[in-house]
Each structure stands twice: as structure tokens, then as C-alpha cells.
């Protein structure tokens, strides 16, 4: 059964309470106090919440960056807030869960509805790991055209800072970003390749003064965490291949992939090796768990 908390309650998230149009009542499922309690809650009233938003039409780059940055931020102890949509939202939730962090899903529909319903597994996982599902709508209120932007104000309002990963020109993520600015919260954006169709929105935000988040450190510093995190930023990942890999070709492949993930055909051209030979080497590396193929590109694990 869903519980609820009113704006007057002392348990109401402090940061969200600062909003003029803060929801009068919040319905929730999951571990409210473990997250929002000012003393001892992991997010301490929202001070340790990062909203992560972005396009539904995520590219492999966006997926990669979300995994990398959000995963690290969550691992450090920041609670990740997002909107439970597919694309960057879902990826942010997943990254937080994988890193063993906490995550809050703000639903655009009634608290008793899972939207989109095929993400029910993710929904359950969020609850099982001590996360939280929140909505200002009760019961089985459907997700409607106007509930999404309303939901966005909660996502932005709950969090001390907002991170935009990928956003096209008309992305809903920009609404969240603009709200965050309006509420006086910090806005981070992950730089995107300008050739990408889902980069325009992010580029606009950066022009308007959003802070560049090129690694988790940039965000963690803001939250007051010790920087120099366990994982090195993506751009600095070293060029020393794991030594136990046998075979000269395999070594060469790893060296290339460490610098840049690429399609297998591009790799064949770069190394000037026939696809047949390369295929065997790639299979070997995949079986060894050294590289993985995702969305058509090869990555070092």
C-alpha cells in the first residue's frame, strides 16, 4: 500500500519544500526515511540528491556516459533521482543500482501504476534495493500529456543538482534543466558530439552557463565528496592493456579499444587485418570477458 506525506510534515524533503509550487502531498513506495530523513537518511532531505535527466532517444554514447558518470556518483553515495522513462532516465536508475547506490523514481502517473509498464522489473529492483518511488498523483491516475512536465518539477526540486546527459532540441529534459535553474539549483551537462542529433539541447544549456561534467569528479566535488575517485575519468583511461591477454593480435586490439571504442569493421580497417582473423580474436576476447559488444561497438570492459 502506498503511503503519503504532506507538505506540512517534518519528514517532507527540505529542498522540495522550498518550492513555491511544491506538491501538497507526495505518495510513495519504499524506504522514505532511509533516504529523506535529515539525520541519517542517505539523501538528507535532498542535499545529496542528483537528478539525472536526458532524452528517451538515447545513443550508445549517452548510455555509456550515463553508466560511467552516474555509476560513480551513485557509488560515492549520492542518491540518483530520475523520471523512470526509458532512455537516459532508466539508464540512470540502472547505473545507480549497479553501483550499489540508492535511486528515486519520480512517476508521471498515479502511485499504483507502473509507467512504462514493461519496466516493471526495474521498478521492483528499485524498491528491493532500498530505493524509493514517488508521485504526487494518487491511485491509478494515468500518465497524461501534462503530468510529465509537472513530474519534472519534482525531479528538479528534490535534488541539489541536475545532470543532463543527452537532450535534443525539444527534449523534456530541458524543462527539468530550466526548472532546476529557476529553483537556483546547480546544473551540470555532459558535453556531446555536435554531430549528434541529441546534442542541441545540451549545447544550449552549456552556452547558457551550465557546468561541464566531464567526469564524476566534477559532480562529486560539488557535493563535497573527496575527489580522485576510484575509477579514472573516461577520457583518461590508460593505454596499458591487461597483461594476461595472450596473442599479439589480441594485445593490439585491446590497445586500440582502450583509446576509442569502435565498430568491428572500423577496427579491421585500422589494424589492416582481414575480418575473418579479427572475428576469431574478438570472439576470444569476448569469451575472456575483456571486451563487450554494445549497440554495434566494441568496448573494453
Amino acid at each position, binding site marked *: 500500500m502506498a503511503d503519503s506525506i504532506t507538505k506540512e510534515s517534518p519528514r517532507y524533503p527540505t529542498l522540495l519544500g522550498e518550492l513555491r509550487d511544491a506538491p501538497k502531498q507526495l505518495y510513495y513506495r519504499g524506504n522514505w526515511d532511509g533516504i529523506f530523513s535529515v539525520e541519517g537518511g542517505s539523501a538528507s532531505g535532498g542535499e545529496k540528491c542528483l537528478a539525472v535527466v536526458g532524452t528517451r532517444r538515447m545513443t550508445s554514447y549517452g548510455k555509456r556516459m550515463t553508466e560511467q558518470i552516474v555509476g560513480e556518483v551513485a557509488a560515492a553515495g549520492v542518491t540518483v533521482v530520475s523520471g523512470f522513462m526509458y532512455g537516459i532516465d532508466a539508464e540512470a536508475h540502472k547505473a545507480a543500482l549497479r553501483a550499489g547506490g540508492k535511486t528515486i523514481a519520480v512517476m508521471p502517473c498515479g502511485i499504483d501504476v507502473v509507467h512504462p509498464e514493461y519496466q516493471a522489473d526495474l521498478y521492483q529492483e528499485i524498491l528491493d534495493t532500498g530505493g524509493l518511488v514517488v508521485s504526487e498523483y494518487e491511485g491509478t491516475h494515468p500518465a497524461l500529456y501534462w503530468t510529465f512536465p509537472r513530474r519534472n518539477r519534482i525531479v528538479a526540486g528534490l535534488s541539489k543538482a541536475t545532470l543532463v546527459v543527452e537532450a535534443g532540441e525539444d527534449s523534456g529534459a530541458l524543462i527539468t534543466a530550466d526548472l532546476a535553474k529557476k529553483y537556483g539549483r546547480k546544473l551540470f551537462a555532459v558535453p556531446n558530439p555536435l554531430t549528434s542529433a541529441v546534442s542541441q539541447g545540451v549545447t544550449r544549456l552549456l552556452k547558457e552557463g551550465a557546468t561541464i561534467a566531464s567526469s564524476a569528479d566534477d559532480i562529486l566535488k560539488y557535493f563535497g565528496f573527496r575527489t580522485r575517485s576510484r575509477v579514472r575519468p573516461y577520457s583518461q583511461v590508460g593505454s596499458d592493456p591487461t597483461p594476461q591477454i595472450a596473442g599479439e593480435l589480441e594485445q593490439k586490439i585491446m590497445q586500440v579499444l582502450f583509446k576509442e571504442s569502435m565498430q568491428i569493421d572500423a577496427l579491421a580497417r585500422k589494424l589492416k587485418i582481414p575480418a575473418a582473423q579479427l*572475428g576469431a580474436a574478438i570472439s576470444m576476447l569476448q569469451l575472456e570477458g575483456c571486451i563487450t559488444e554494445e549497440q554495434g561497438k566494441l568496448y573494453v570492459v
Partner: protein
Amino acid sequence: MLFKVQSAANSGLEALGVDIEISVSNRGLPGFDIVGLPDKAVQESKERVRAAIGNSKIEFPQRKITVNLAPADIPKEGSLYDLPIAVGIMASVLQYEIPPNSLFLGELSLDGKLRHTKGAVLMALFAKEQGFQNVFVPAESANEAAIIQGVNVYGIKNLTEIAGLFLGKSFLRPVAYQKKEELTEDIEFDMAEVLGQETAKRAVEIAAAGGHNILMIGSPGSGKTMLARALPGILPRLNEEESLEVTKLYSIAGSMPPRGSLITTRPFRSPHHSVSQIGLIGGGQKPQPGEISLAHRGVLFLDEFNEFPRSVLEGLRQPVEDGALTISRSKERVTYPCRFMLVASANPCPCGYLNHPRKPCVCTPREIKKYRKRASGPILERIDLHVEVPEVDVEEFRGNQKSTSAAESSCSIRERMSEARKIQETRFAEESIYTNAEMKNAHIKKYAALSKEAEQMVLRAALQYQLSARSFMKMIKIARTIADLAFEQQIGKEHMLEALQYRPKIYELD
């Protein structure tokens, strides 16, 4: 007066003898009747024969003419009995001897000329088997019939010619088979023209070498169709037996061109996705071969695989496995062979741009799931190689002409394919199969020995990727072909590893 002329009817790829008895009687009112289960086209032959004889300046007898097509219980169709009927009727007027041991077939034109008739090669084969000496066919179909050695094939241009021949006024030599000049231009797309796509090209080569079915998944414009169209150019030519099988099928389907000769290039069929089940599989009241049979020993290319109606695709299941299809109708049952290589192409999602490096995909996960479910699972299971055909960055190639010219041409690939097929033919000399793709489990045990390392690899992969038993066997089949391409007796580790690259990845089966 009674005249007997012999002809044949076909039922599928089988031919049956038909005796045509023509009775020209002085008693009774003048008339012309055909009996013996003739179909509409045969009934209409009356009018054609009457006009053709008249227009050949031969008097049409004003008597009671009865034509009987025996045996009466097999259905006879088409226009191929025009010539035998006309020969019989003219015999009553011109008083010539109809040469014994001869088979006649051909359609008449109203001016007495003979038209190209389907099934000539089948009839010639039947004639040879049944010990006929002579076959009289339209001149346009004569070369096709002359493929069969050991019978005298006479190509007849018109009724005047055949009358003159039988009256001893003229002389006609049997037709000598003329092999048509092989068109060197049978390569529509050269493999060398396909930019990049090293992996996909390799997969297509493996498929061609071993006769494997292949699924290509990629965004619009990435080159799936071009790769498929380049396939005929790299496939080895048909061997003699195969040629005859294909030629017979095309002859029956009426797809042989006039003066056609033996088909030696592998057929390439690419039906549009609006194809009906009968169009694809074959059938009809008088069962005709469908696209799958016309693709026999060649390629059946299903572009936009997901757009084909499911019911149509499901019909492919059994023919893909068996390589032959029996069409049963109330009046007859016929079997057409259909051992083809299935080449399918599909988009990764409804909008087509999933994983595209520059264009974002606008599909929701649910739409993608639904889209992929549309492809028939059981058919996907029967496809050995799954390969992605990613978008090529044309910019990368624009400044770098070298990499395109370095690509291997279709001609040289074809040579390698022929070598690999030869190895397979020798291997399966004692079996009823030709290619690695046709191997059943028993064959795999017998002919696809894995080296110890290769076995370890495939077992490990099976665990790690949770390969189904069927996928497991497919991997071994592909590895067998890869080893053949490398002229290796035994399947090594590297062959097995490469084969693993072509396991189902995107269109995973639940």
C-alpha cells in the same frame, strides 16, 4: 480413319505419356470434338487448330472429327496438344505417314506458326526415358529440348514445314544443342563495390561457400540489399545435375526464354513482401512451383523480412528443412524441389536507426520488441548466420580510394567459393547432400570433427552465451565451412571462434 499421335502431360516434374487418338469419320455431321478431361485451353485448341490448318493452305476436312486424349483420367492442360492434334488431322487430308516412336508438342498460332511452349525439356527427358526416337517441338523451344542428348529433337517453325517433312518434300536435321554464350555481365553488383562492411562481406562469403541461410540486420541504406544482390556474382556455377534440375523447374514454370539453353547460373529470387503464400511456396489449382522452387539451388532473398506476413513465412519452415515441397490438391499431388539458400534482411527496429552512429532511434522499447516478434521465431531458428550490417561512414572512404580498390572482386571470390564447394562435394559424395548447410546431426558427427581446442571453445561459448542445442549445431556447421575455406581438414580453434561471431545477437530468440 484413325490416327494416333503421341504426346505427354506433366504432373509436377514428372511427365506422363498421353496418346492422342484422332478419328476422322465420314459418317455423321461435320464437327470437331475433344474428349478426355481436357481443360479450357485444350478445348480452345479446336479453334486454333482449325484456323491454323486453314491458314496453312491445307484443306480442313469437313467430317466428323473426334479427338481423344488418353488416359482419360489425368487432367490435361495447356496448349501443347495443338501440334499433335493438327498433325493427326492433316494426316487424314495429306495422307502422310506419321513417323513412329515420335513425341509431339507445341502451341499453334492462328497463322500456322508454332509458338514457344513450356515444358519442352521435361518432354525430351521423358522421351529419352521411354525410348522415343524423335521429339517434334516448336523451333523456339527446340534448343531447350535438345539439352537432353540421345533423342532427335526437331524444331518446327510451322505446319507447312512439318507437312512437307512428312510428305518427303523437304528435309530437316535434328537440332544440335547450342550452349548460349555465357553472359559475362551476369554480375549485377561486384563485391568490390560494397564499401567497408568487412564482417558482413565475410559472413556472406561463408554463407555462399556452405549454402548457409543468412540474416542481415542493419539500418536503411547500410548496404544489406547490395550485399544480397552481389551474392549471385560470387556463387559457384551450377554443376550439371543441378543445372538440369533448375532448367526443368524453369521450363515447367514457363520461365524459360525462347531459344533458351541450360541454366548454369544460380537463380536469385527476391519476391516482394506482398507475396502470397501460394506465390512463395507454390500451389494453385494446377500446382505450380512457387518462388522457393524457382530459387532451387540458388538464393531466395527476402528483403525487409519483418514485413512479410507471418502466415506466409511460416509456410517456409518445412521446405527450408526438407529441401522439397509436396503440394497436395484433390486432383493431384506434386513434389517440387526447393533447396535454396535463404537470405533475409531486416531493420533493427521499426524506424531503422537503432545503434545508428548519427541518427537517433525514435522507437520505444515496446515498439522494438513488437517489431522483432513479427519475425517468425521458427524461421529465425533455421538461419545459420546472423550478421549486423552497420551504417558506413561514407566520409571515411571518400578521401581514401585505396581501401575500396583493395576490396576483392566478385570473380576472385567466386573462385574461392567454387574450391570450397568442391571440397564439400567430395566430402558428401556418398551422401545425398551437397553442402555443409544441409548437414543433419548424423552428418555433423561424421564429417565435422572438432579439434580439442575448438571443442573446448564451443562448449565454453555455449555456457556463456546460453546457446540452444540447435544454435550449437549451427555454430559447428559454420565452423566446418570456415575450415573448408581455409582448406583445413579439421575444425580448429580459430574457425570455431570466428563462427561464434555469427551467432544470433540482435534477434535473439526467447
